[in-house]
C-alpha cells in the first residue's frame, strides 16, 4: 500500500470508524429534492447523493427504486464522465449497476448505455438493479470487455476497473487478507488491457473515466500513464467538489506523465468515505 507519511495516523483513525451509509435519489422515479425520512447531509460532489440517518436498504423507498444505496466516493466516477442525454455510452464493468443507474439518471433515460459484465451471475444482479431503478436506456451485454468490437462507437466510456480493493478496507476489513502485490500486478496488467480497448472504442473527442477503489499507484497513475503514452488520450480535469490529493508522478523509481497530477486520489480520511481513484481522459 501507498506510504502515507503523516497521513497514516488519520487513515488508521478513520478506518476504525464504521463507514457512513449513503444513497442517491433516483431521478427517473423521484424528485431529487424529495424529503425522505432517512435523508442526511448532502454529498457535495453528487447532485442527487445524500448520507443517510438510518438504514436505507430495508425501506419501502428502496424497494420502490426511488433510491440506490451507494458508497459516497464512488458517486464521483459517473459524475466525472459528464454524460449527456442522447449519447452512446459504454460501462465496461457494470455490475451490480451503481454507476450504470447513476448514468441512466444523468442521461434522463435517453440514448443508450451498453452495460457490460463478464460474469453471468453478476449480470443478473445488474439486470435486477436496472429494473428496480426503471432504467430503459441500457443494452446489457455479457462478455469480456476486451472483446467488445465497436471501434469509435462510443461518446463516453466508464471503466470502473476490477482492482485489488484496498480502498474498501473500511467496509470490508477482510479485503486485507486477500490483498497481495501479486494481485496488484495481475490487476494492473488487466487494467492496461482494458484501457487499450477503451481507447479504441472511444470516438474522437470522447471522454473516458477510469476509476478504481484502491490506492495502489500500479493500478492508478501507472494505468493512466500507460493511456497517455500508448494512446491518443490526454488527461482532463475532474470538476467536482471533493477533497482529494493529486495523482502522484513518481513511484518506486518510476516517473509518470506530469498531467497525471490532474487525476483524483480520495483517501478515506479526506471526506470520511471509502478510498477511491478517478481519472478523466479525452481522446484527441
Amino acid at each position, binding site marked *: 500500500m501507498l506510504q502515507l507519511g503523516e497521513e497514516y495516523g488519520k487513515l488508521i483513525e478513520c478506518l476504525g470508524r464504521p463507514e457512513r451509509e449513503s444513497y442517491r435519489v433516483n431521478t427517473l*422515479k*423521484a424528485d431529487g429534492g*424529495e424529503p425522505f425520512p432517512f435523508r442526511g447531509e448532502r454529498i457535495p460532489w453528487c447532485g442527487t447523493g445524500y448520507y443517510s440517518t438510518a438504514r436505507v436498504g430495508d425501506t*419501502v*423507498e428502496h*424497494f*420502490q*427504486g*426511488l433510491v440506490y444505496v451507494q458508497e459516497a466516493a464512488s458517486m464521483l466516477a459517473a459524475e466525472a464522465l459528464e454524460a449527456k442525454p*442522447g449519447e*452512446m455510452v459504454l460501462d465496461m464493468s457494470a455490475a451490480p449497476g451503481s454507476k450504470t443507474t447513476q448514468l441512466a439518471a444523468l442521461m434522463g*433515460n*435517453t*440514448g*443508450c448505455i*451498453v452495460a457490460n459484465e463478464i460474469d453471468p451471475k453478476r*449480470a443478473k444482479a445488474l*439486470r435486477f438493479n*436496472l*429494473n*428496480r431503478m*426503471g*432504467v*430503459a*436506456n*441500457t*443494452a*446489457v*451485454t*455479457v*462478455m469480456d470487455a476486451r472483446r*467488445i*468490437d*465497436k471501434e469509435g*462507437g462510443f461518446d463516453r466510456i466508464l471503466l470502473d476497473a476490477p482492482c485489488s480493493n484496498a480502498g474498501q478496507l473500511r467496509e470490508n476489513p477482510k479485503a486485507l487478507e486477500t490483498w497481495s502485490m501479486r494481485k496488484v500486478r495481475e490487476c494492473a496488467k488487466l487494467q492496461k488491457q482494458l484501457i487499450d480497448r477503451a481507447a479504441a472504442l472511444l470516438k474522437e473527442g470522447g471522454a473516458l473515466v477510469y476509476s478504481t477503489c484502491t490506492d495502489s499507484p500500479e493500478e492508478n497513475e501507472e494505468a493512466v500513464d500507460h493511456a497517455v503514452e500508448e494512446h491518443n488520450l490526454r488527461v482532463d480535469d475532474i470538476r467536482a467538489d471533493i477533497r482529494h490529493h493529486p495523482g502522484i508522478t513518481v513511484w518506486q523509481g518510476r516517473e509518470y506523465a506530469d498531467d497525471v497530477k490532474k487525476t483524483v486520489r480520495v483517501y478515506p480520511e479526506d471526506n470520511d468515505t471509502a478510498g477511491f481513484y478517478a481519472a478523466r481522459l479525452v481522446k484527441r
Partner: protein
Amino acid sequence: MKVLNSRERKRLAESLTKEYGTPPKIFSGLELYEHGGGLWAATRECLTIDARGLKVDSLGLQVLRNGKPTIHGIQLLFREASATELSEPEAKKFMEGGSVECAARIAAYGGHPIDAAEESGSGKRRPGR
C-alpha cells in the same frame, strides 16, 4: 422482436385503463417491443444498436410479463395514477406479499406507486413478479 406501432400502443393503453381503472402513461420517448412472452420498453437508440461485436443479453426494461405489468411496469405506467396511499407498516406488509385494505387497484406509498393489488378491495399483491 416486434416493436409496437401507434395503433397497438393505443390498444394496450385502453386495455390497461380497463383493467386498472386509470389511464397509464405509455412511456413517451420509449419504444415498446414484444419478446419472449413479455413486453419491454427501451430507447430507440438501444433498439437500433448494431449488435455486431456485442453479446447482447437484454434491451431495456420488462414492463409486462404474460400480459400483466411487472412491479417496475406498474411503477412507470401508473406514475401519476390515482392510487390507494398506504401507511409505512401497510406498505411493508404489502411489499412482502401480505394483505391490506386497498380501494384502488394501484397501491402507493409516499405518492409513488408500489405495485398493483390482485383486485380492488382485496389489497393483496400478485406474487412472483
